[in-house]
């Protein structure tokens, strides 16, 4: 494979990273209200959250992407390929992260809520000063491994024409009829990008989990 082809595939990396980062940020924010609804005292909010999460997770990412890009984008208003990819993956990420958040909330011993209540701490302060530092420690390992999954899912953006790794690989393989090495190299790039993220995940899993009070 020529150096030129390699450079073209390399030029897709920033786009892949941008979709991953954008979708994760959106999902991380969206997950908070979803999780709050899921653990709320109101029966209605709880069942709404369950239904939303179930629907978001039961339709494949690429179908969400097409719904946004071809479905909504071709009729009511314009949606760019990049926006559509980030929003589609961001919605699913939100649903998945809300479950990760909920798992983290469960991992905090109920005695801590009772103790902070007994000390008459304001509710907001309990959350920010006591819960959040512990939540982050539990969430971080699962969130990092989720990012790796998201990185690979971002390849679907190639189907709507975002010029990320998979798109460039497709482009080169069609032009030079050398799909074998092109797709092998593209796959390798995804693995190489996920290595540092995986290292962070493994490190944080070992160090941070041990610090959580039981």
């Amino acid at each position, binding site marked *: 494979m020529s150096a030129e082809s390699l450079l073209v595939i390399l030029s897709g990396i920033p786009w892949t990273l941008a979709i991953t980062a954008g979708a994760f940020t959106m999902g991380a924010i969206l997950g908070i209200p979803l999780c709050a609804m899921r653990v709320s005292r109101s029966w209605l909010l709880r069942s709404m959250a369950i239904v939303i999460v*179930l*629907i978001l*997770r*039961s*339709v*494949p*990412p*690429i*179908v*969400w992407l*097409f*719904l946004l890009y*071809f*479905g*909504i984008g*071709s*009729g009511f208003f314009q949606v760019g390929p990049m926006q559509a990819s980030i929003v589609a993956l961001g919605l699913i990420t939100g649903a998945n992260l809300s479950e990760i958040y909920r798992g983290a909330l469960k991992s905090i011993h109920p005695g801590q809520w009772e103790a902070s209540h007994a000390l008459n701490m304001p509710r907001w302060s309990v959350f920010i000063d006591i819960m959040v530092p512990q939540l982050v420690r539990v969430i971080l390992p699962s969130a990092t491994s989720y990012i790796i999954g998201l990185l*690979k*899912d971002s*390849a*679907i953006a*190639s*189907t709507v024409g975002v010029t990320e790794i*998979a798109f460039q*690989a*497709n482009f080169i*393989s*069609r032009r030079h*009829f*050398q*799909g*074998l*090495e*092109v*797709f*092998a190299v*593209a*796959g*390798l790039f*995804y*693995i190489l990008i*996920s290595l540092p993220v995986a290292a962070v995940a493994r490190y944080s899993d070992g160090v941070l989990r041990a610090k959580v009070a039981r």
Partner: protein
Amino acid sequence: MSDLFTFWLENLPTMIDGLIVSLEVTGVALAVGIPLGLLLALGVQSRTLAVRWATMAVVEIGRGAPALIMLQFFYFGLPQAGVSLTSFSAAAFALAWTTSAYTSEIIRAGLEAVPYGQKEAAAAVGFTHTDALRYIIVPQGLRVAAPALLGFSILMLQATSLCFAIALPELLSQAYMIGTNTFQYLPILILAGILYALICIPATIAVSLLERSLSRHTA
């Protein structure tokens, strides 16, 4: 509104055809991938260094590379090496590889959940290593892994939608084709989403119920 339903009804047979293809690919990928995943799970624990490294490479590539890239590698890449696959067999091979890589990790976790004492007890009563695996470790490990494997199977059905990229006439490809012909992308894609959800939502609920009933005695 009734326009929408007549449009859906008109195109439902084509969509069902697509859904059947999706289910067939899922079935083949799981039928080939899960037994392979068991072999890989055993291979990763092998005492032979070469076997361990080889299986780890297969697993890491299968998990590390996006399924979309795998599909395109098999469909657009292999013809260059003189192996031309139909889109169905390319999809089956690629997704079976991905399945085996992911399920090997699930099954490995299941096997590790079997207490070590059972292996020792098996050795003590004179089981060979293979027999201990065959009659004692693997059956219990698979039982532990079952809910996670079913959950993964649901994800695999969703992953077949990626076969759109290699022109396999599965559900999403059919929806896209109808969309291109009629310019009614939104309604037909919504129908595709509903069809996926109709399978995946009950399946997800069933898996979580199964998980709960299996863990009732351990928790």
